[in-house]
């Protein structure tokens, strides 16, 4: 595989063992290998339930890999997320990895604009500048200004998802993991998200994601891939 890769997954295996349900074992990823280079947007196209989100979560360090390596570019070096200390994983997330999940985990009482500015603040961006960037991102994603100072607790599903997207795209992460970023969005918001993804690609971000919608996939992907084809024979 390329030595330029920003994400390099090798022989990744993930099986869930459900101890509470009689020890049932669910193998999901079987020796998956893939690589994503800067400037690429690789989209996984397998049907629902085949493990696409599981792969993204494993790359983010949210799920534990049973075997294999998950190398992620962090500054000048590659970090193996599969074996890294929690403290290092947090550091890689803070600086290098943006992850748009399918759900926003809402913090009570924190205004939307602060939710969006938080990752920038954690990188040391001064408050005024972080808030300014957060506002611009919320505006691009069509969240009405009267909602910015409210907690997203009461927002609609689509609005929450846009806050989630704004939070990640407000930071210029070198690597983006996108789990169905456009699934619950109206067409105007979808256009805005497609534009954000293209901009990220142009500045050299390495993007790995899932997109069910064929038109959006065609608009953002530089390469499509199935997990089945990424598994060792």
């Amino acid at each position, binding site marked *: 595989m390329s030595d330029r890769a920003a994400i390099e997954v090798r022989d990744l295996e993930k099986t*869930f063992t*459900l*101890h*509470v349900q009689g020890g049932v074992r669910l193998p999901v990823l079987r020796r998956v290998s893939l690589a994503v280079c800067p400037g690429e947007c690789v989209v996984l196209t397998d049907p629902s339930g085949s493990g696409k989100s599981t792969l993204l*979560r494993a790359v983010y*360090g*949210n*799920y*534990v890999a049973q075997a294999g390596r998950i190398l992620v570019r962090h500054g000048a070096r590659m970090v193996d997320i599969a074996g890294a200390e*929690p*403290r290092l*994983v*947090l550091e890689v997330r*803070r600086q290098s990895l943006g992850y748009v999940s399918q759900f926003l*985990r809402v*913090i*009570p*009482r*924190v205004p939307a604009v602060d939710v969006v500015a938080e990752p920038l603040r*954690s990188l040391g961006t001064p408050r005024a500048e972080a808030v300014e960037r957060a506002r611009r991102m919320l505006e691009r994603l069509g969240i009405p200004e009267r909602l910015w100072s409210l907690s997203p607790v009461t927002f609609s599903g689509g609005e929450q998802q846009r806050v989630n997207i704004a939070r990640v795209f407000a930071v210029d992460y070198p690597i983006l993991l996108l789990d169905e970023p456009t699934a619950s969005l109206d067409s105007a918001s979808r256009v805005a998200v497609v534009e954000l993804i293209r901009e990220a690609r142009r500045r050299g971000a390495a993007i790995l994601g899932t997109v069910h919608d064929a038109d959006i996939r065609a608009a953002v992907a530089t390469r499509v891939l199935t997990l089945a084809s990424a598994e060792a024979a």
Partner: protein
Amino acid sequence: MADGGDRPLLRVRGLTKRYGLRLGCLDVGFDLWPGEVLGLVGESGSGKTTVLNCLSGRIGATAGVAEYGMGDGTVVDVLRLAEPARRRLFRVEWGIVYQNPRDGLRMGVSAGANVGERLMAVGARHYGRIRGEATDWLRQVEIAPDRIDDLPETFSGGMLQRLQIARNLVTRPRLVLMDEPTGGLDMSVQARLLDLLRGLVADLGLAAIIVTHDLAVARLLAHRLVVMRAGETVESGLTDQVLDDPQHAYTQLLVSSVLPP
């Protein structure tokens, strides 16, 4: 999370407490880094409060070490501190927030004095400045400044807990121990307190150890979790990883037992 140096703030190894034949905790170990919040989770009786009480010196450990790097660069084993040194540690470097705020407050003196006397204990003498700082801290924990001369007796449970937090944070400790800080408060009060704690911990770059049986509290506050059962550690790792992909049968049971609101 603030960047810490290259050494953990607190390094715990082999921490064990036996009450005669009964086990409090066995061979507990973890590192805590500057700016990091560690959650100790598990059911009642799992030994998490025992760990906290050993660290605070409230009870004596049977075995183990807990090396703490002091602000002046020296390293001390907090399990073996003589009483004067332990008191100094809690005056200058550590804070402790009890589940019952009455254990951490002085109920016979005013709210302002509860905050101010901590400053005096570390050498502050100027009355106006102490009162000013106490007022500022009451505001930070969302207690109206005009309550500064009231006795804690007149406060609600949520206010008492916030006052206890102000009393602890006013001296800018480097490490805070918290035992079920939101226990016994109703949900809306809890949310407010959690949000407050979350902001303060991030802004001050505090390291904290939080004991809780509430996994939602752990998710909101902790970077890392240690899951305990029957005195032993069954699993540890990144908070979201432990809660979203628990590996141990007991953790899976804990996570799957939570009723969604």
